[in-house]
């Protein structure tokens, strides 16, 4: 219990240290690219953000949804985790598209290209927004949880399509950047280290935000239920007086 509390308390500060380290290494310490110049520094942000958007946050939402639907592990905790993770996923997918666009303009000459990776990521973003719309459309908590869980699983079909899009189609978006076909690291040691720290930092940032969002959701549910109870009590008191 103590270790869990300590980990929970350390999550925020460690995340901030790792992100600060990423900024310092990415902007001042690592070298420029021979061809791309300073533009290469986006590589310390965009892939990590995309990793969190597609795999960590969407993956968390999907796994929590599967666990909600599985009768043995069914609980509103899983539904809340899926909802909060999906909400964070929307933010990270948007950041992925924005940072990709910033990189695309000087490299490809356009802010947006009809590329398989870009288009499928945008579709995932719309699906994540659809998930949030679906939740708002249902007032019954159990029905809402069940439908959202099914939708999250259906939407997750898009993730492997995004992942393999660069292999399946001829795309402007490059294929694997860090690892070669033989799994050897293709980039400079210091750049690889910065990228690694960035991946860990952004992953921890996701869990930090998720934890905060989850707590907020629990408090929101509690607040709404207390208000309802209070309103009912007030009505009962009114009835008793009459």
């Amino acid at each position, binding site marked *: 219990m103590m270790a869990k509390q300590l980990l929970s308390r350390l999550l925020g500060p460690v995340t901030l240290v790792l992100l600060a380290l990423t900024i310092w290494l990415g902007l001042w310490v690592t070298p420029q690219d021979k061809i791309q110049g300073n533009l290469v520094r986006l590589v310390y942000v965009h892939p990590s953000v995309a990793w969190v958007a597609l795999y960590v946050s969407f993956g968390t939402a999907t796994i929590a949804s599967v666990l909600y639907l599985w009768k043995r592990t069914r609980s509103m905790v899983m539904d809340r985790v899926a909802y909060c993770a999906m909400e964070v996923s929307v933010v990270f997918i948007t950041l992925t598209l924005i940072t990709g666009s910033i990189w695309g303009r000087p490299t490809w000459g356009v802010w947006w290209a009809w590329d398989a990776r870009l288009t499928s990521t945008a*579709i995932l973003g*719309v*699906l994540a927004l*659809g998930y949030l719309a*679906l939740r708002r*459309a249902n007032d019954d908590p159990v029905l809402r949880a*069940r439908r959202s869980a099914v939708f999250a*699983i*259906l939407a997750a079909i898009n993730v492997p399509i995004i992942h393999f899009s660069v292999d399946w189609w001829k795309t402007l978006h490059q294929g694997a950047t860090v690892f070669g076909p033989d799994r050897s690291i293709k980039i400079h040691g210091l750049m690889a280290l910065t990228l690694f720290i960035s991946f860990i930092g952004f992953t921890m940032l996701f869990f930090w935000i998720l934890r905060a969002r989850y707590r907020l959701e629990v408090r929101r549910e509690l607040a709404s239920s207390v208000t309802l109870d209070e309103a009912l009590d007030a009505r009962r008191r009114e009835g008793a007086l009459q």
Partner: protein
Amino acid sequence: MIRTALLVAGKDLRIEVRSRVLLWQVLPFGVIALLLCGLALGPAHAGSSSAGPGLYYLVTLLVTLLMINRSQIVERAPGTKSSIATLGLDPAGVFLGKSLALAVELWLTGLVLLAGAVLVLHTGLHGALIALPSIVVTLGALAAAGTLYGALTAGGETSATLLPVLALPAFAPLLIAGERSFYDALHGGELLGWWVIVVVALVAYVAMGILLYGVLDE
């Protein structure tokens, strides 16, 4: 499961034959949408065979949304839900039956729209016939996916507006694969790759439906 599927499909198709909504409302909407697509492109571009497959699938998607809504409205009649629950019908069979009925309706509509595309958008008849098997499979996959998404949005006040928001992004890969296979059929391209995507999507949606429809129907 198969017996339940056939029963449900028969029920849905009988309702459709008696109400004639498909004939008098959905099909005219599809034809009008096809004509509007031609008008939006202008006479110079509407006749080019490169636009035909995309416009055909775009109109088919719009028609599919109408038909999914229709398929769910049929279930809203008083006593339908409770009857299904009382009869203890297998949810997987219900899903397959509703998907089959929707697929039959989509195949009929798809054929009429294909004839319309050949006439109005000058899509080559020979190419359209070559594309027919891939259209059949794509529309089958749309029916399976549509039945699932219809069940997801069913019942609420916002179901009509929520359905396109949820279903259209999910239909996008099918639209791309269907359009590409149609285009390749017209221009003698390689069909196999797109075929694989459409067949995988069909199998995936049918499997998902069999597994998850019961949860939605609880």
